[in-house]
């Protein structure tokens, strides 16, 4: 498949995403307004009277009929204006720019950590069924799925911060003695490396350690289980038997024939796991005072902060469209069958 054809396919996929995103916009717009509660009354404050509530309603543009509100919203959106999140007093764009990297840093870090543990563990468990590795894998998987993240988070906090004092105070992304690095990617670890500041890198990593482990424990389970199952399946398949019969080395059989094929379902799972982790983030963010997107969205939802909720949903929609695209592209790289028939 030529490069031109490939990029054309990517482009087509992107174009296909447009109606999806627009649909999400409409549904989200209607859903937020269908929520019970009156943001004007809420934001006018405790003692406000009718007149001042009306005034706030006007300021928020909520006195307009709904279709008009939607037109204004889409118009603003096209100019890149996502509105102001009243619950935090910042523009939604600012909030997303600051909080999305914070959440992604945790999520991606946790995925990475989980992958480096879960994949080898799954492979080992599959190649040595019923050995101690297999049992360890089962134990971790069961623990990972059955322990709620806020519990793991609190337990880790209790042991490593409260009792042992190894972890730094759980107060967000950086200890109070540091200033955040100049923002390039928004990931403190990467930005501090770019700035060449090792002390800062260490500090941000220390701050991340506990939330990262909490999330990784949760993420590990489906990945390890999927790897193990997929490996067992491919190891029992005809082509692996053929390869073995042909006298190929054990290593070659495992890596080239079995593992590469087993990776496909793992990648698919990864896409789903990513969305789980982003959801699980909310609780972890609360426990570790992490200024991420999850806690922001929940707070916004609770107070019916329309602009913030819409901005959040839109960014998530775009993120997942991008993620699915990425997974599809990865598929074509790993699986020679995908793409050849087109």
């Amino acid at each position, binding site marked *: 498949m030529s490069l031109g054809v490939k990029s054309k396919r990517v482009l087509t996929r992107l174009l296909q995403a447009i109606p999806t995103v627009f649909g999400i916009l409409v549904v989200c717009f209607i859903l937020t307004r269908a929520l019970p509660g009156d943001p004007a009354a809420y*934001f006018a404050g405790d*003692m406000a009277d009718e007149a001042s509530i009306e*005034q706030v309603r006007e300021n928020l543009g909520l006195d307009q009929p709904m279709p008009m509100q939607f037109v204004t919203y889409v118009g603003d959106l096209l100019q890149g204006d996502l509105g102001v999140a009243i619950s935090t*007093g910042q523009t939604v764009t600012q909030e997303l720019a600051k909080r999305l990297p914070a959440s992604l840093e945790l999520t991606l870090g946790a995925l990475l950590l989980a992958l480096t543990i879960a994949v080898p563990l799954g492979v080992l468990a599959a190649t040595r069924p019923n050995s101690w590795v297999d049992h360890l894998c089962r134990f971790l998987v069961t623990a990972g799925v059955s322990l709620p993240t806020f519990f793991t988070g609190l337990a880790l*906090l209790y042991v490593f911060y409260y009792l042992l004092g190894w972890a730094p105070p*759980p107060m967000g992304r950086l200890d109070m003695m*540091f200033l955040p690095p100049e923002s390039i990617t928004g990931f403190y670890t990467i930005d501090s490396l770019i700035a060449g500041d090792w002390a800062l890198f260490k500090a941000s990593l220390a701050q991340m350690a506990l939330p990262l482990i909490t999330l990784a424990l949760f993420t590990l389970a489906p990945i390890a289980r999927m790897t193990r199952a997929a490996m067992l399946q491919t190891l029992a398949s005809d082509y692996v038997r053929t390869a073995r019969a042909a006298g190929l080395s054990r290593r070659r059989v495992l890596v080239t024939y079995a593992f590469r094929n087993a990776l496909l379902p793992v990648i698919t799972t990864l896409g789903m796991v990513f969305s789980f982790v982003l959801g699980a983030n909310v609780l972890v963010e609360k*426990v570790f005072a992490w*200024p991420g997107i999850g806690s922001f969205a929940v707070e916004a939802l609770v107070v019916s902060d329309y602009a913030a909720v819409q901005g959040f949903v839109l960014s998530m929609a775009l993120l997942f469209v991008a993620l699915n695209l990425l997974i599809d592209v990865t598929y074509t790289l790993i699986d020679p069958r995908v793409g050849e028939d087109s």
Partner: protein
Amino acid sequence: MNRRNFLKSATTLSVGASLLPLAQLLPQAAQAASNETAVVVFGGTINSLDIHRSGTNRASYQVAINCYDRLVSFGTKQTADGSLSYDFNNVQPELAESWEISDDGTVMTFKIRKGATFWDGKPVTAHDVKWSLDRAVSLGGFPTVQMKAGRLESPDQFKAIDDETFQITLPFPSKLALPDLATPIPIIINSEVAKANATPDDPWATEYLHRSPAGSGAFKVMRWNAGEQLVYERNDNWACGPLPGYQRVMLREVPAQSTRRALIERGSVSASQNIPNKDAKELAEKAGVKVVSTPIENCIYSLCTNLDFEPFKDKRVRQAVAWSIPYEKIFEQAAYGQGVPMWGGADQVTSIAWPQKSPYEQNLEKARALMAQTAYKDGFEVPLSFNLSVADWAEPTALLIQQGLAEIGIKASIEKIPGANWRTIALVEKKLPLHLENFGGWLNTPDYYFFWAYIKGNLFNSYNYDNPEMAKLIDDTLDMAVSHPDYTPNVTRMIEIAFDDIPRIPLWQPTLNVAFKEGVEGYEYWFHRQMDIRPLKPA
């Protein structure tokens, strides 16, 4: 000097630190909770630095308190347990050096403090005061409502006579006018800075002051990372009071209560604002932590019976409900014994202290007897609602009330209402038949409480109570001086009516609990329930 070297030397550097540029100052906070820096954690979020802006939440009021001055403030008094509290009956100068009130009580003339300057060095003048108060009454929303409580409604009432003299004219004399000037709302803003940043669409510079305060107060905002932290830096030229004990105060947002508790217990932070009763009780027994619990003035946690609900139209049913509540158990299990009991008082009202104990206690005989006299002797069903955002005390309370009501044949089903909807459903539409309510008045007079809670249509009368005698008493008394001969009889009568009609059944007076690391002194309770960091100091 790079950051690393700086950190190494930071411990030896503390005197000269104030000469360093801003970016390098922060690492100083390394010795968090040291003698220079205090770290305060809280569960809310600061969403604006401008208290007048619409949408500014309660937690953000502390910026107005610490960064701005008002014309007047309140003095300090010692409470029964030795902790400090503001003193409602003792109005003290802040930006106003002195003031005079005309003989008829309608003209107040303030002299602005000499030598008081804004952070940029500009002297504070009466014109700044005029602009700031105009802004508070013009922007609408909560600020305007609070100003109105002190009879301050229109810019025409405010006059800058010259640079140092400012005059307020009241439509009629009111005892609430002066104390209302000491609430967080009527802050004095640097009007020149504000005007320079105003636009035709935004004449009151709300966009600018939202992010950049311009005041004369004891602290400046050094950094504000919304959703994370706010760093206060002391204004060493503050003219309106003794220099605060801390050079810098970092306010950190930590949403999870369990995390905040771990932080204060480990001694990582200097103070944890507004902790739940359970933690207050448990932390008080730990070494290294000090808990200050102050009863919240003019505030009662109550059960309200809505008079729009048919059975509650009968006074005897309301009284029966009041006699059925297991007060004692509620106080133990929901309040963890923190607070002041508000039941089991004398039959006669002998004092005008407010809040005071109601004559009710759990007496099922009496309750059943009262119910038997009514048309509802076979009982009825009623939903019992509470606000989910105060579930920590409301949920156990509701469950215990449910048990008490079951004893007299009333079947209550519990309904939890999300915080965002509470206001609309409970306070604006006033349609909850039976609910828990926690109103507290900022201005500490009983008549002010009764004004908000016992006049038909007012916000905290969420139970549609309507009694012409009560309404007239409140109307007569609200602006009346406390020394007026009619004042005590009027308030006594109000309390009598409130207890007899009992649309709002008092449960207990809650406390405001703050936990401190050992060695942090000077904390003072304020009616606004926010942390005033100005009097805090290291031991």
